[in-house]
Every structure is written in structure tokens, then in C-alpha cells.
């Protein structure tokens, strides 16, 4: 952090922040601390939007923003930083314009790149606090580890549908995310946001709580949410606070630390397979599939496309969309060959990988999907 004693507030700034300055706990000193602070926001999505707006409005002197995405109209349901005029623009550019029009007294530094193990330490070292608003586990563990390695507090928030979590990690040597969750869920076990959805206002609530914790960490007022996990269930309006304690097995900060550098987080989270230990996805050709059907073999056929695709054309398979596959394990046979198909083979591969993680070993991917089947076997059916 810059030297607070050297921070000056202009007449305009004093007027702008007067409602802060008259709070005894914050005062002029607190406002100067906000101006001296350099805060890095990871992601300008649902969580980053409110956090950025409030931290900019509050007068955080330097805000860094990292995001490699562009604004899409499906973002606007929750990413209140953006407007329809921003659709198609780089998020960091649209966000910077919005923030600077909100508060011209602050500096905004943008990074239009994906946060990686290669760039994280270089970017983090210039900041006092990181606010993690990422939407995936590899980046979440990367942010955690990079914060531990650079000694920067990590103000964390996470959401799913109606549930939210907030905590402050690595604050003055306190616990970090790996103390809470040593490992991420394997791929396929938790549905994605695109499939699972999120109530638009929820990241607004959690992102504001995150901004509040950033302000506390920066100014030193109150008790930051370190060593505690706050959870919010928007449906039941239930809030809970749990204690987090250090995990002696933590590879970064446990009794016998084994990890000294950033790692390959896609691999750690199971998104990249170990080519040696990878469970292969077995395939069946459309010709063999036809033969099996003609022979009336005892098989189960599952279509993991969406219902509207199934309506367009289907080959009589049982419809279980990919996003709900793990909810329907009781309908998926383990005792006979199960052939899984989608439109052309990608979704069915992911479904099989998810099911194989759950112990299935009787699954076959229909090579080429329903399109391959129509082209080769039943050309009278419609293509789409």
C-alpha cells in the first residue's frame, strides 16, 4: 500500500467522500487508506460487477481488473456493470469506462487476459488485496495459491443458484481456501452455472459483502471475516457463519508444505486428463449400433441432448439431458451396455466421463452422435 501519510485528498474528493469521512470509525484517515489501496478484482462478472462499482464509488485509489471475456446479452441479467451498449465489447474496457465515469479520481488498470500460473504472481505482487469473483475451480485454487505465495489477503465470494459463500483468506497469516476445501469436485459432479443457473440478484448481494470485506481489510476497521465462512441461502433467507481452521495437510501452509510454486490448475481440477491414468471413453460405430438393435440385444440407449432437440428428431432413446445426468443415476443401468449419444458426440463424451467418475464402466459413446446415425443409417430422418 502507498504511504498513507503522503496521500492528499482534493477539495472535490473531500466533498465526494464526506459521508465516509464523517463516520468516526473511518474518518479522513480511513478515506486516505482507501485512496492508498491497490485492489485487484478477478473477474468482472456477477460478483465483480457490484464489487467494482462499490469499491470505485468508495474511492479505492487503484483498482486492477482482470478478465478476458466480452460482454454478452446473457450477462446483463446479473452483471450490472454493463449496459446493452456494451454487448460485444471487451469486459475490461466496458468496465473501465463505467468505473471512470462513476469516479474519475481513481486509477483503473486492466488486464485483458486469462489469469494463469505464468502471469498470476507478476500481476498480484503490485496489489494489496485481491477480490476473487471467479466462476471456476481452477482459477479459484490459482487465486488462492498465488495470494498465499505473495502474502496478499484474498477476499473470496462464490455463488450457485440460490447459495452464496464469502470469506477472507490469507489475512495476516490466517486460513486459506485449501484449509476449507482441500480438493475441488471432480468434473461432472457439480453442474455448471450455464446448466444450473444463478439468481441474478444473488451475486449482487454476495459481491457487495465482498466489497465490504475489502474495505474493512484496507482500512483496518471492524473484524474481517477471516477464519470464518459466511453462507447465505437466498431461498430460505438463512445465513450461517462457520469456523474454518488450519488443515495440517494443507500443501501450502500445513505442517509439511509440499507445494512451493503454482501448478497446472486445470490438471489439478481434473479438467485435463493424465494421459497415463485417463479412463478411455469407449465408442461404438453407428453401424455396430444398428447391428445390435437389429439383433435385439439387451442394451440401454440414452440421449443427453436437450428436450427441444429431442423433439426435432430422436431415435427412441431415453432422454436425460447432460446437465441432469447425475440426478438420474437410478435410471442408468449398470448391468447391461449403455450407449450414450448426443448431436455429434461431444456432450455424450462428457456425460460418460462424469458417469465413469461415479463408477460406471459399461458405457459406450455413439460415434458421430445422432447426426452420424442419420447420415449413415436412417437418412430419411431430419438433420438439424
Amino acid at each position, binding site marked *: 500500500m502507498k504511504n498513507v501519510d503522503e496521500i492528499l485528498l482534493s477539495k472535490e474528493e473531500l466533498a465526494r467522500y464526506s459521508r465516509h469521512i464523517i463516520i468516526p470509525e473511518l474518518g479522513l484517515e480511513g478515506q486516505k487508506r482507501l485512496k492508498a489501496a491497490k485492489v485487484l478484482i478477478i473477474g468482472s462478472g456477477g460478483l465483480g460487477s457490484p464489487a467494482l462499482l462499490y469499491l470505485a464509488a468508495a474511492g479505492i485509489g487503484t483498482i486492477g481488473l482482470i478478465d478476458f471475456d466480452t460482454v454478452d446479452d446473457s450477462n446483463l441479467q446479473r452483471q450490472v456493470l454493463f449496459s446493452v451498449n456494451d454487448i460485444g465489447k471487451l469486459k475490461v474496457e466496458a468496465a473501465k469506462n463505467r468505473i471512470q465515469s462513476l469516479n474519475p479520481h481513481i486509477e483503473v488498470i486492466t488486464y485483458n487476459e486469462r489469469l494463469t500460473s505464468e502471469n498470476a504472481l507478476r500481476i498480484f505482487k503490485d496489489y494489496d488485496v485481491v477480490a476473487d469473483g471467479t466462476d471456476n475451480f481452477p482459477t479459484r485454487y490459482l487465486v488462492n495459491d498465488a495470494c498465499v505465495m505473495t502474502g496478499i489477503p484474498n477476499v473470496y465470494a462464490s455463488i450457485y443458484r440460490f447459495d452464496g459463500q464469502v470469506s477472507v483468506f490469507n489475512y495476516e497469516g490466517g486460513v486459506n481456501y485449501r484449509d476449507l476445501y482441500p480438493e475441488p469436485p471432480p468434473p461432472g459432479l457439480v453442474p455448471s452455472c450455464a446448466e444450473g443457473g444463478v439468481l441474478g440478484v444473488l451475486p449482487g448481494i454476495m459481491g457487495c459483502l465482498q466489497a465490504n470485506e475489502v474495505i474493512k481489510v484496507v482500512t483496518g476497521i471492524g473484524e474481517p471475516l477471516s477464519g470464518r465462512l459466511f453462507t447465505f441461502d437466498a431461498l430460505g433467507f438463512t445465513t450461517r457463519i462457520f469456523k474454518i481452521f488450519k488443515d495440517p495437510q494443507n500443501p501450502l501452509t500445513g505442517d509439511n508444505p509440499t507445494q512451493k510454486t503454482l501448478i497446472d490448475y486445470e490438471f489439478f481440477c481434473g479438467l485435463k486428463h493424465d494421459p497415463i491414468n485417463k479412463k478411455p471413453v469407449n465408442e461404438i460405430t453407428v453401424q455396430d449400433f444398428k447391428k445390435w438393435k437389429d439383433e435385439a440385444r439387451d442394451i440401454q440407449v440414452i440421449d443427453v441432448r436437450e428436450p427441444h432437440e429431442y423433439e426435432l428428431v430422436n431415435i427412441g432413446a431415453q432422454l436425460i439431458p447432460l446437465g441432469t445426468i447425475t*440426478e438420474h443415476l437410478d435410471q442408468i443401468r449398470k448391468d447391461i451396455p449403455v450407449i450414450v449419444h448426443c448431436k455429434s458426440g461431444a456432450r455424450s463424451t462428457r456425460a460418460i466421463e462424469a458417469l465413469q467418475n461415479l463408477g460406471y464402466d459399461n458405457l459406450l459413446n455413439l460415434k458421430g452422435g445422432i447426426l452420424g446415425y442419420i447420415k449413415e443409417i436412417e437418412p430419411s430422418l431430419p438433420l438439424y
Partner: protein
Amino acid sequence: MATLIIPTPLRKYTEDQATFTTDATTVGQAIQELTKRYSNISPQILDANGKIRNFIKIFVGEDDIRGIDGENTPLGSDTVVSIVPAIAGGISNL
């Protein structure tokens, strides 16, 4: 009766029930009762060896069971057990 709080990401496996009450006297027994009643939730919270998965936290009251007696942590008649999974917004791995 102890009460298990089911988080929203796992309610699809409990027929949308937000809570599960049980006469079990330990956390481990309560989880067993839960997975017996709703078999599809089992692979979500237990690994192949029947151990609670690393991305699922179980709290009794506000305390992590790891700091008490793990799955042998005793339950009182009004104990609230929270199952808190790791969540990550828009993960796109399925």
C-alpha cells in the same frame, strides 16, 4: 432429532427437501441415514470408500466436524448439521 441442512445444489437429490431429520446419534450415522433415504446423493457426498468427500464440509453447529470427532461426532436431539459443498459460480466442467 438432529437436523441435516441440505444445501440447494444437493436438493435435487433429496426431492427438493431442504432438511433431513434423523434419530442418528453420530454424524456418520446421520449421513448414512440420509444416503439410505436418498441414494442418488451418496456419490455426491461420499467417495468410493464411504468417506466424506474433500469438497464437502460438514459442520455441527458452527464447528467443522474435523475439529471435533470427525464422523463419530455425537449428535444431540436439537443438533443442526450443515452440509456445505464447494461452489464456484459458472464452472463449466460438465
